[in-house]
Structures are given as structure tokens and as C-alpha cells.
């Protein structure tokens, strides 16, 4: 069976979630384009969107409609060509509406796993919980045909474990999209031992079709992405604990967030990123990974405390950011959480922020924000100069940033030496493409 044949009937489990909805958009778009090709005219394409939450499924449909319109607007030049044979479509608005209508024709929404019974591909994007995923995969194995392939979006659970526990016989592959899946180019590809070669080949072809950059990771809990991110986050959390001796709790969080964003020239601070992912998700991934690394402590008291207080971050249905370590107005941080006083302290309140900024000092000469450097053709040279200056600087900020860089590098090197990643390029590739860093963690800056 070719990839096109497999794409005739696809199901997404956990479709209304953050990752599921993005995967749904990508696949719905691909099916619609396939259906437009004359040779596929008589074929029936179905995309089953399955989620336990019916209200969230309504939100999913709204999301898909908005995104499909945007997509059609953006690709209007090609769209007019794709619908060339349709004499009744004349204006751009008519082509756009037709594309959205055609995309929706393929969608089948429901809360029952049974809806996936005829699916040839199943994308599993349920919550990051081993028992849940195993249970779902087991049920699906019984519901679906024996040649159905499974793509799991797990970001941390070893695929061979899922394969074994659900007795899938090599019909599962790790296909870890990055958030938001419709935008992010990266997919971490995790091929467990015993995978069927056909599935592996199809997943490579699918990656190309969806215009994704596939980076292979070996089947070790956390893979490359979370293997780095979790330890990177734990480093910041440990530094917060250390800084608590000299700074107030919200100052310590603020400082490490600012060091990771400004001093390291990353797209967002580490605590903003943890909030974006969800503090509960962060905890869950740590819990998944922890048993596999007995020599490390993959755990954080502060993260556990936040989760126990139901301060979880993550996003609202409309995509806006929920409060976590930071408090947000839309997506802009406006306050920092003080775990001792159990409240948020506004960035504008009193002079605690100015005092913290004064104590860490300014980033050294050559600093440009991430956003500015992103499109700069000379960013490599500029980063080199900046980090040279950072190393020479004696401020507390420079010290914390240099330590952070070293730690990030050590984590990345460990991922290569322990066989999680096949190469330095793969680790750097994940951080560059999945986390939008301007430079890989394995660099000559430290």
C-alpha cells in the first residue's frame, strides 16, 4: 500500500488537544490536496478526530476552520490552479470557501475509539501518560485491522515499551511533532527495535509530504528534545534554589528567566517556556524519564509544589497563555510567582525588578535580542562576538549565563555520548528547529 492509500483513512486520538489539533490540520490539508487530484476523484478520504472531550472537539472544529481559511488565503495562487477545472469558482473568496468546505468534508468527529476501526494510520496524541497511552493503544489494536500503523506523538515514553505493552508487533513509530505542529518544522523520529520496515519508509515519505524536517532520535526516554529541555529546565530550577539565598523568591525566578532569554539570546525565557509547555506536562515528562536514569535526579520540588497548587501554565482554548511561573496579559509576562507568599508580584510593583536587574547587570556589548538576530544574515559572527564578550564579563548575569551555556552544552554532549542522539548535528538540529534557538547547544562559545 502506498502512502496515498494509507492516507485515505486516518484517525487522530486526542485530536482536540494542543498537539492533536495541529496534526489534524496538517493531515486534513494533505487529504484535501490529494482529493483534488483527478486520479483521486472517486476515492473517499476520512479523517477521524477522536477525543474524550466533546466540548473541546467543538473548539477543534472552530480552530480547523480558522486555520483552513488562513491556509487557503496564504496559498491562494496555487489554490486557483488546483481548482482550475471548476468553472463556477471565479473570485479568490470563492476558491477559499471551496477549499474550506472540501477540507471539512473529510472530517469525522467523535468521542468513541471505535470510530477509528477502518483507519490505516492512527496518530496517537493523548496526554503524556504511559498507562493511558498503553491502554488506548491496546484498545485500538483490537478495534483496528491488523495492518494499521500507529504514530505516537509521545515526547518521552520509549516507543519499544509502548510496542511491547500494547503488543503491536512493530507497527508503531515515534513521530514527535513540536508545538504548534502546523507551524514547527521539526518532527523527532523514533524508530524502536523491531519496527516494520514498511512503516519506517512510509513515515519518511509522510515527513516529506508534510514538509517536515525529520531528525532521528534513539529510543531512550525523553529522546533528544525533552532529554535536553528537561535537564535545561532543572538547571534553571536548581539555580533558582541557589539564588534564593541572596534574592527574594520571585527575583530568583525572574533572574533565571531573564538570563535564559536575554543573556542567552533565546526566543523566550526558560520559565516562560515551561509555562508554555505546561508545568504539569513538564512534571509528567520528568516522572516518565526519572526511572530510566537512576544516576540522575530528574525531579523538582518547586515544580511539584506548583502542580500541587494547581498552577499549571499551558494554554487556554483560544491559544492564550495561562498563568504559571509567570502571570500573563495575553502572552506577555506581567508578574512573577512568589512561591513563599503564594502570590504573583507585578513586574511594575516596587523596585524588586530594578534591583534584580542592577545586581545581574546588563548583557555585554554586542547584545541583540533574539527577534532582531533571527533574520540577520550575519548572526553567526554577531553571536560569536557577543559570547566572547559574555565570557570576559564579570557581572553576576554573565556568570550565570556562562554557567547556563556550559550546562546546556554538557547536557547535549551527554545525549550524544550516551547514544540518545546519533550526532552533534542531530542535537543541535532539534534545538535549532524545535526550540528556535539561534545556535546549537554544542558550540564554541563556552
Amino acid at each position, binding site marked *: 500500500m502506498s502512502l496515498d492509500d494509507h492516507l485515505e483513512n486516518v484517525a487522530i486520538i486526542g485530536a482536540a488537544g494542543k498537539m492533536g489539533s495541529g496534526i489534524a490540520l496538517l493531515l486534513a490539508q494533505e487529504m484535501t490536496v490529494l482529493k483534488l487530484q483527478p486520479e483521486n476523484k472517486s476515492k473517499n478520504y476520512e479523517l477521524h478526530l477522536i477525543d474524550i472531550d466533546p466540548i473541546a472537539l467543538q473548539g477543534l472544529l472552530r480552530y480547523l476552520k480558522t486555520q483552513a481559511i488562513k491556509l487557503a488565503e496564504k*496559498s491562494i*495562487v496555487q489554490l*486557483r490552479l488546483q481548482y482550475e477545472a471548476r468553472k463556477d469558482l471565479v*473570485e*479568490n473568496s470563492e476558491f477559499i470557501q471551496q477549499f474550506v468546505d472540501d477540507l471539512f468534508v473529510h472530517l469525522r468527529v467523535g468521542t468513541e475509539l471505535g470510530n477509528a476501526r477502518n483507519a490505516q494510520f492512527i496518530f496517537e496524541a493523548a496526554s503524556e501518560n504511559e498507562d493511558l497511552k498503553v491502554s488506548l493503544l491496546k484498545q485500538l489494536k483490537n478495534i483496528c485491522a491488523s495492518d494499521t500503523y500507529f504514530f505516537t506523538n509521545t515526547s518521552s515514553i520509549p516507543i519499544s515499551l509502548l510496542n511491547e505493552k500494547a503488543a503491536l508487533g512493530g507497527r508503531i513509530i515515534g513521530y514527535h511533532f513540536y508545538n504548534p505542529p502546523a507551524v514547527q518544522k521539526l518532527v523527532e523520529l523514533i524508530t524502536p527495535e523491531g519496527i516494520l520496515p514498511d512503516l519506517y519508509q512510509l513515515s519518511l515519505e509522510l515527513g516529506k509530504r508534510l514538509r517536515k524536517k525529520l531528525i532521528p532520535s534513539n529510543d531512550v526516554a525523553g529522546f533528544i528534545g525533552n532529554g535536553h529541555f528537561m535537564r535545561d529546565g532543572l538547571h534553571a530550577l536548581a539555580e533558582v534554589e541557589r539564588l534564593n539565598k541572596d534574592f527574594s523568591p520571585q527575583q530568583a525566578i525572574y533572574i533565571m528567566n531573564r538570563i535564559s532569554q536575554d543573556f542567552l539570546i533565546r526566543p523566550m525565557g526558560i520559565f516562560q517556556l515551561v509555562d508554555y509547555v505546561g508545568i504539569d506536562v513538564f512534571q509528567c515528562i520528568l516522572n516518565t524519564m526519572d526511572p530510566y536514569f537512576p544516576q540522575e535526579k530528574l525531579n523538582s520540588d518547586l515544580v511539584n509544589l506548583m502542580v500541587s497548587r494547581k498552577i499549571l501554565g499551558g494554554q487556554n482554548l483560544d491559544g492564550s497563555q495561562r498563568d504559571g511561573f509567570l502571570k500573563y496579559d495575553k502572552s506577555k509576562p506581567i508578574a512573577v510567582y512568589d512561591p513563599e507568599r503564594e502570590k504573583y508580584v507585578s513586574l511594575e510593583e516596587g523596585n524588586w525588578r530594578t534591583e534584580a536587574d542592577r545586581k545581574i547587570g546588563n548583557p555585554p556589548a554586542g547584545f541583540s535580542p533574539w527577534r532582531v538576530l533571527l533574520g540577520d544574515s550575519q548572526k553567526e559572527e554577531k553571536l560569536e562576538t557577543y559570547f566572547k564578550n559574555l565570557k570576559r564579563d564579570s557581572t553576576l548575569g554573565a556568570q550565570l549565563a556562562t554557567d547556563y551555556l556550559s550546562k546546556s552544552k554538557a547536557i547535549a554532549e551527554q545525549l550524544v555520548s550516551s547514544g540518545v542522539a546519533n550526532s552533534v548535528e542531530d542535537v543541535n538540529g532539534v534545538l535549532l528547529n524545535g526550540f528556535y534557538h539561534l545556535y546549537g547547544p554544542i558550540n564554541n562559545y563556552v
Partner: protein
Amino acid sequence: MKKLNKPVYLTAGYNTLFLGSGRKEFHPKKPRPGIEHYVIEAGKGAIAQINNAENIDEGVIANFMAARFNRQGNLPAFMPAIDPSLLYKPFSRIEGACGSGGLGIYTAIKTVLSGIADVVLVIGLEVQNSVKAVYGADYLAGAGYYEGERKEGHAHFFPDKFSQRAGVCFKKYGQEPIRKAMAKWYEQAILNARRNPKAQEYHNSVVDLFTQGMTPPNPKYFVEHLNVFDCSKVTDGASAIIVTSVEGLKKLNIEKKDAIELVAFGISVDDIKRQPEDFTRLTTTRKAVYKAFEMGGVNPKDLGVCEIHDCFTITALLALEAAGIVKEGEGASYISEEKTRIDGKLPVNPTGGLIGFGHPTGGTGVRQAVDLWQQLTGKAGDCQVKMNSKRPYGLMINMGGNDKTVASFIYKPAGA
């Protein structure tokens, strides 16, 4: 060729700010002023320069596509909202796509020449940021032949029409000189707009405009031979000017030094169903301009300043050739040698033109008249060109569609 049977003057011009992407005030998701605001602001702007709005006999409102951009028809009825003294006076709406403004002025001129009125207020406007550009392209495509062209046409209908012209010019004259001249025109448009606080590109701070202008086209998302910098942007804006007889000037208590005199006009309209005779020529534009030259006894050497219809960079080049300012095939070198700059041999579009100032489609012709009035009366501020008394004439070309509905005017200072 008939001559003007009496003097006609233009005075009391006013442009609103031209709003759209590029202006710091512009945010696509925030509410913006609508038609009513623009009509009233432009109208009041003109009225503030005359002694009494009572003296306005009638008016013309020029607009292309409010019915789609704003779901609004019956635009004449917005005119009395400008001033209570305009209630129950005669107003008409004129449409000729992007040439609406020019036709509006032409209509006002005819009204004055007929003796029916001494003072005619002309307002031109378009409010087109109401929809995304991809839908605006549908509305603007109404300037082409819907039944015969739209289905086969490009998503970006008009950019593609002029992209095709650029492609044929590349073949005829070589791609490099034409492409460079187009980028030079873009550079000039932005440099001039930076002198003009009301221009859409006033805040543009790009350092290397020429390089930006040379950005390779991306046919996958846009058209084959143009990049987005070759195109005028989507603009909300309005302009107003008053057309009068000599008696009208007196009634308004306007001195001649504050008015310009119409020397000639030339209106030319092609069949909307026809393809251009020659993609490297603006045939209709040439006919309109040469009608005006003939009526006024003026030739291109007499021109001191021009306002041409540069909806796309390639159009500017072709318009200079159509107007006889340069020979065919020499538009590119004329632009590249910077002869059209504000301090050049013949300043063209010194306030930024359609690319720099902005292009509120149905309003552009009136804007061009206002800017020539400012230039010829010394009111152009930082955009003022140095006029030579031996070349006192200002030429205006306003074009609707793909060289279909063209209005051309020649003005001079009223005292000259």
C-alpha cells in the same frame, strides 16, 4: 480640438493622512475611521480654506468600490454631512476604477464650464483596509472585465496584469535595465514619502531601498515579474479640492496666488474587453495626455512637475514614455539617472506617488490634483520642488484599470 471657453481654477486642496500598513498608527485588528470620517475630514479641510461653505454650488464624490469594500452605496448623500450649508445641494458620484478621482475633477470642470455652477467641491476617497488584501484583490479586479478576464486571471489580478507588461518589457529592452529602473523608482517613491508626513510610507526607515526593490519575485505566492515593493499598497484616504470659475474665486475670496489654473484636459477611455494593443505601451494614457497637450498647446518640454499614476513601478516607466517625456525604451535610463527625483530635471511624484504616498484607489486622482495645486502655489512644504518659470506646467495622469479609463490634466499657477 475644442479649447476651454473660460478660465477654470482649482484651489483649497486637502489630503487626509493615508492610512495602511507601514503607518505606525495602523493596526489591522483595531477599529479605524470609515467613509463618513474621510468624507467629512477632507471636505472640512477644503472648506476651512474658503470664506463660507454656502458658496459651494455643488459637488462630486469620486470613489471606486465602496459598495464592496464598505458595503456602502449612495455616496453623494455623505456630502451634506460635511457642513449643514450643503444640505439639499446637488451632488453626484463618479466611478472609473482608479481613475475615478480624475473623472471627478473632469466632471467638476465641465460643470463650471457649462455655467451651471461657479464653485464645485470634489472629494475622492477609498477605504479599503476593511478586508484582507486577498479579498481586496477580488474587489479591485472589478477594474478589469469580470466576465471575460476574472476566471482566467491571477489571484492578484492587477499585479499580474502589470507583471505581464513588465515581462514583455524585459524581453524587448532587456531585463536588467528595466528591473533596476523599477527598483530605483521604488527607492524614489519612499525617499519622497519620507518628506511627506501624510504619506503611508512616511515611517519607512529601510536603509537600502534599492536592494529591497531588487528582491526577486516569488511567483508561488505572488506574481511572476513583480515583487511586493513594485506595488502600491492598500490605503485608506481621501482628498478634496475646489474647482471654480473666475467668479467662483471671487465669491470664495481666494487670491489667484492660492489657486492654479486649468490649462487643458484630455480624457481617453478604451474598451474594457480589449487586451492591450502592445504590452510595452500605455496607449490610452498616451491618447489622453496628447489630447491635453493639444488642447493646451503645451509639449513635454514645458513641464516643470508631474503627477503620474505609478500603481506599479513598471507603470511609472511606461507612463513617462506614454507622456512623451522620454522616447519609448528610454524610461528606464531616465529613472535610473535620477532625472525624476525631487531635485532632478523633471520632478515626478514628489510627495511619494501611489507607491510612497499611498493609493486609495478612487481618491488618487483628486490627491494628485491637490499635490499639483500645492506644488504650483508653493505650498508643498518639504516636498516642494523648485519650479522654473520657463516650465510652469504641471501634468497629471490618472489611470483606471489596465490603461482603460485615463484622465490627464495640465495646470499652471493662476497668476502666471
